[in-house]
């Protein structure tokens, strides 16, 4: 550990900080893989340190295997296959029901919110990011409901809770209920049904389990304050 007992780290809410680190890691994991991500996944340091972070959260979350034997190109191709490339398919050709018009596991919350319009989901997120002074990088912009944005935002709120003030915890709980909980469960369900997910299958399990555990913990803590 880089910290010592005299480090100001002692003055930061370590549990929330660790949760923030887990969210930041998950955000990276669901982005198109970079070489550094692949290296950490291949040599096992990703799994080990993520496990260590989770140990510091006080949440009881099992960590699945998060290593890969893929070389970098294979991992990138796997990501593309699962998350990026897709087209319309039909599950039932007799009644014409449409399975998906995107990839097998879309990384957008609105795809898992059949009762909510795209606009409703995205507008609410837009206001949420905006409320906290955050904007989407326009150099390579994506929709507000992109899972990585939501995970980055969850990490941001957790770090605010760790370093600025507890009231972020209420926002975190609300964010789980309004958005991230739906996205995480949807992505995990789809990943569980998808063959050949390799490391992404593990990340799907972790995503769902961690978000659920964090949410339930927040709900317990804030039961009287909502």
């Amino acid at each position: 550990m880089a910290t010592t007992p005299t480090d100001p780290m002692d003055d930061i809410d370590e549990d929330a900080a660790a949760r923030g680190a887990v969210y930041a890691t998950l955000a990276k994991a669901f982005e198109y893989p970079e070489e550094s991500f692949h290296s950490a996944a291949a040599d096992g340091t990703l799994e080990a340190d993520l496990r260590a972070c989770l140990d510091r959260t006080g949440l009881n979350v099992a960590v699945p295997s998060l290593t890969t034997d893929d070389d970098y190109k294979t991992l990138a191709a796997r990501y593309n296959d699962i998350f990026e490339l897709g087209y319309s398919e039909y599950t039932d050709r007799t009644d014409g029901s449409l399975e998906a018009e995107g990839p097998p596991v879309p990384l957008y919350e609105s795809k898992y919110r059949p009762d909510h319009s795209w606009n409703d989901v995205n507008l609410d997120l837009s206001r949420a990011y905006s409320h906290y002074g955050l904007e989407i990088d326009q150099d390579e912009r994506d929709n507000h409901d992109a899972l990585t944005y939501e995970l980055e935002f969850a990490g941001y709120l957790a770090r605010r809770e760790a370093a600025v003030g507890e009231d972020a915890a209420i926002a975190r709980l609300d964010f789980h209920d309004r958005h991230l909980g739906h996205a995480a469960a949807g992505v995990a369900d789809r990943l569980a049904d998808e063959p050949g997910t390799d490391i992404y299958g593990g990340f799907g399990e972790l995503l769902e389990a961690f978000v659920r555990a964090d949410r339930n913990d927040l709900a317990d803590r804030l039961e009287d304050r909502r």
Partner: protein
Amino acid sequence: MSRNDLTDDEADSAGISRRDFVRGLGAASLLGATGLSFADDGMDGLEAVDDPIGNYPYRDWEDLYRDEWDWDSVARSTHSVNCTGSCSWNVYVKDGQVWREEQAGDYPTFDESLPDPNPRGCQKGACYTDYVNADQRVLHPLRRTGERGEGQWERISWDEALTEIADHVIDEVQAGRYDAISGFTPIPAMSPVSFASGSRLVNLLGGVSHSFYDWYSDLPPGQPITWGTQTDNAESADWHNSDYIIAWGSNINVTRIPDAKYFLDAGYEGAKRVGVFTDYSQTAIHTDEWLSPHGGSDTALALGMAQTIVDEGLHDEAHLKEQTDMPLLVREDTGKFLRASEVGLAEDADDPEKVFVMVDADGNLRRAPGSLGERDGQHDHSKSIELDFDPQLSVERSVDTDEGSVAVRSVWENLTDELSQYTPAVVHEETGVGENTYQRIAREFAEADAAKIIHGKGVNDWYHNDLGNRAIQLLVTLTGNLGDPGTGLDHYVGQEKIWSFHGWQVLSFPTGNVRGVPTTLWTYFHAGILDNTDPDTAEKIRESIDKGWMPVYPEERDDGNRPDPSTMFVWRGNYFNQAKGNVALEEQLWPKLDLVVDINFRMDSTAMYSDIVLPAASHYEKYDLSETDMHTYVHPFTPAVEPLGEAKTDWEIFRLLAEKIQERAQERGVEPVEDRKFDRTIDLTTIYDDYVRDWETGEEEGLVEDKAAAEFILEHSEETNPEGSDEQITFDDIDEQPQRFLEAGDHWTSDIKDGEAYVPWQDYVHDKNPWPTFTGRQQYYIDHDWYLELGEELPTHKEGPEDTGGDYPLSYNTPHGRWSIHSTWRDSTKMLRLQRGEPVVYLNPEDAEERGIEDGDTVEVYNDLGSVEVQAKIYPSSEPGTVRHFFSWEKFQYPDRDNFNTLVPMYMKPTQLVQYPEDTGEHLHFFPNYWGPTGVNSDVRVDIRPSGGDTE
């Protein structure tokens, strides 16, 4: 719970301040999780623009929904699909995201007597936002890793993608195979800057620009044949000026939604509206009378109506004498026009062999003014067709020529002979239309003050479309319904022309040397049609190519070899999905291409079968112009938001590719290459400089940005910057409000006038300029050897080719649908929910019952070429015997990736491969989208059965 007591920006011993920590910088390191350092450099997608540790009381967030109807900005834009709508929209933006669009509704009114031009739009445009934000957007450059079409891709950087393409292109040019590089993009009018982006680069490379209007079978060949012009139409507002409108195979209520109001409104004003459709279509149900000829029998119906008009003396004799070839004499022995040179007339003409002969009221032979032989080229407005004598229409006599006495007859005599075959009994037998009904319609049409035909794709997709066109055109010619408000034959199929022509042309093809190719011929030639068609057609294709009437690239080399095409760029189109004969294309043409690059905002079928896909900006993320021949306005695309992901505008993409080619060419030290055909040098070491240079003014780097390219078009077009006038339309003007064009350039046949809807043909009908035909007149008689050989010198009804696709009992056609613009929106969830959500065929109940098919069944439609699995819809409005498969579903929307075109073989009509006159070709010569073989598809035969049936 303890709290950090650092000052906000002071770093702790690990080098992290509180602000950085909340931003996510080094947060994992602070926890000692060095294995997570890849996630430790802050947030990637979200940026903290305000203080990350500022005070954000949470309760405010709960009220966020109240701000839903606030906008940061509203941008004007439209949609760049192969659609004639050109509808201006407002696009609403908040937080860098498009949320919805709304019809702009501010086209200025130019004629108070016409209905308000606003609003324009349709349900597709109203949900384009879904595409902008869709997860089927292509967001990054992709390189194929599996087989073509397999869907295996790797994301690559822009630099990697451009370098790979650039090196390939340099290799091809240096090897002299620049004419193996193809660029396919359709319809300039829908976004001329995007069209020009790739066309400009392909032009500088010496590559091949593909036609589209003929390939899509949108081009009505009868119009160049008869009127010497690609197409010229009244704007839709002119429908309102008609007293009588026949919608002939044009399903206005489905395919012309923004304009349909004029059709309905004309009815309120008292116009009679007749529909000619094989089915009781969505437009037929709104007409006053519906005629339902058998499929492919429109020619017989039109000639029957013409016979009624002539027989009852309802024709406009003055119009026919002055404006048409009807008085011209034709030799009985050869079938050729009698030339003035043969009878000692017109010896002062430049070429008396191309001057034609009439007989005046006194029986004297007279030269026909305005013939090609006395004109300076196809278009020569210094001459006139006005007559100073009264020619006879009916002539049958002999004349003395150098060769002795020759029997001659006028075109009119020949035509009336031809028409006399179309008796009521014959017409009824051929078409199924009642004898009295069609004759009454013919009479009403001839007697109306202003009568118009709206001519659609339903009659243009047949093998004999040229004959069909000529026969239907004959109705407006016989009745003199040309050149005046409310008249004409308006063929609204595809967008053949762009108003701001000159600016677009010099932007797209700066060298002035265009290696254009007829795409139908190019596609079928390289897909092996010479081995897969009848011997006569194959021979005529060879002859046309050998004589240089139609080009095919790569061209034959001096050693007699012809290389294969090697490289294809596709943008703004879905060539692979839309190709007729697609089985042969996929099996034979596609493997010849070493590199297919698709520039696209979505993964359509062409993208899926490409090697490299480059992410393009959507329509709301770029600058461009929008125009259509349905109206006379120009309005812009402006970028409401930044392109999603790594997407770039088409202009930027091709500009960057030019830059990379120049960079690599300089690094590789390549030498300039002399063009085999044109007097120019292809110098790849300066190609970027050439790409961004304004060739009109010489300004270096004047065209770096796409907005500058849009302004260039406006600046250099007569329609927006007329010569000799202070008036000019600028980009700022059209961003403020759509602007009506100020003038019509030389490629239009009438002027744009204040207070009047645009109506074509006035240059000829009113100003008496020669029509741009061989004879200088509307020409219904074509004395080309091939036409004479085939018995098509005059419009005549012929059965289509037999057994196209095999000997099957049902006719197969593929009309345009309501819920997509071709393949765009075919995969839109909203649009799919308005229909059955998957490829569907419409069947007459009798045909279905006979085959044990019920509504909703999965069925196979099949012929000798293949089989496609689709859903059956029982459609009582259909005539028996036709399978109607509304087209353009993507290949991947069918179970086996065989699509609607799988059942369509390669076939084309030789009459559309000619040059005329054969030696000089002023009247008919290949020019992309003006004259070339059409990619027809309506003669196909199929059968249908419940899915899983026996294939034998």
